[in-house]
């Protein structure tokens, strides 16, 4: 366990650090002197942007799960598959690992991601007691988000391969676009959220006191 200590933030010294190259400079609103990326003390309108993007993602989440993600037309007639239906199909044919991968990437990750972003947005508006845990939550949210794209790619690849093979036709359904939208919007939401707001909220809560350490 480390001893609790007061910490000087870059912001308190009028400095900001570059998102791209990490250069510290007093150049908020100007390009970074090292790499040229625009610099900010905090990501601009972080809270508002994140909330707006989450709302949009939640709205798209319903069509993404209720509409078919692809239509398979074979000898046995047309068959429409939703995301969850696709998972069941894999499970029933005995491809358990694939069913688990798709279920995790397409169902669990988007829900968990939206919930953790909501937790983070609520947390920065209240006194936060556990900034370390919230920071870890944010890091995980950021890393894991892109893996949800797997299902969209699967549809794209199946459409390609099956067109080439001429075995049957697979058409992408409206849910593919909606789901891609959910993934992209939650990725943008995670990017526009600034984890430093967690620590700002934490220090505001206990001014002058060293940060609480578990």
């Amino acid at each position, binding site marked *: 366990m*480390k001893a609790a*200590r007061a*910490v*000087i*933030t*870059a*912001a308190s*010294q009028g*400095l*900001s*650090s570059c998102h*791209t*190259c*990490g*250069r*510290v*400079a*007093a150049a908020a609103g100007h390009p970074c002197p*090292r*790499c*040229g*990326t625009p610099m900010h003390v905090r990501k601009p309108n972080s809270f508002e942007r994140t909330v707006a993007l989450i709302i949009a993602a939640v709205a798209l989440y319903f069509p993404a799960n209720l509409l078919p993600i692809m239509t398979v037309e074979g000898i046995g007639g047309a068959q429409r598959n939703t995301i969850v239906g696709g998972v069941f199909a*894999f499970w029933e*044919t005995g*491809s358990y690992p*694939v069913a688990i*991968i*798709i279920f995790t990437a397409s169902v669990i990750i988007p829900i968990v991601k939206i919930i953790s972003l909501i937790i983070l947005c609520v947390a920065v508006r209240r006194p936060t007691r556990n*900034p370390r845990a919230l*920071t870890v939550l*944010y*890091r995980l949210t*950021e890393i894991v*988000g*892109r*893996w949800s*794209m*797997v*299902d969209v*790619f*699967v549809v*794209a*690849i*199946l*459409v*390609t*391969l*099956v*067109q*080439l*093979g001429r*075995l*049957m036709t697979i058409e992408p359904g409206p849910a593919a676009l909606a789901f891609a939208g959910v993934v992209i919007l939650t*990725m943008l939401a995670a*990017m526009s959220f600034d*984890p*430093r707001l967690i*620590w*700002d909220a934490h220090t505001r809560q206990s001014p002058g006191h060293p*940060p609480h350490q578990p």
Partner: protein
Amino acid sequence: MAGDLPITSATLASEDLLVACHDCDALYHLPDLAEGQAACCARCDSRLLVNRRNALHRSTAFTMAATTLLVLANVFPFMSIRAAGQQNVIVLAESSVALWEHGMPWLAMVVGTFIVATPVAMCLGLLYVLLPLLLGKSLPGNRWVCRTIYRSGPWNMMEVFFIGILVSLLKLFSISEVIFGVAFWAFGMLILCLTAALAAIDRRELWLLIERSRSL
């Protein structure tokens, strides 16, 4: 791991000798790290920076390996599908072209971006930045190239795409016979090499090298 760093006191060093935690904004003096050491933030445990062994050489080596694999991945057949007495051999770039011809330009662009354009751009971009740096030189526009590589990071979903390929093939196994070609394995290795090339050098170190080579 050198976890405990002296936290800046009231006397601040000059700006470019400072480092701020990306996750919690705590400010530190740039630590002097030996090769193989990493510095973490004392407040939130995020990694501040890491001094990798032979960072520039390793990064360049992985990029060159990736470029070689890129050529293999695009020349040899990716896979062949056999079903109903008919065999289709697929080369990587063909899949995108075929989608376009089937009236799906958007899908064609997405697929083309991930399997052809991104790997080519990443390999050439990294070589353009890294090779001159080995000689302590800097080519015009390398700051833009390097910035684009890092800022597009989360959107480079090549590895996600590769998992997508595996899942779709498992789906196809039930209705046809799929044979993997040389390009399939080359593409998998290419993704690993590109990831390794970016992981081999700390982005702060790379930017410092670029800055120094420009001021020479």
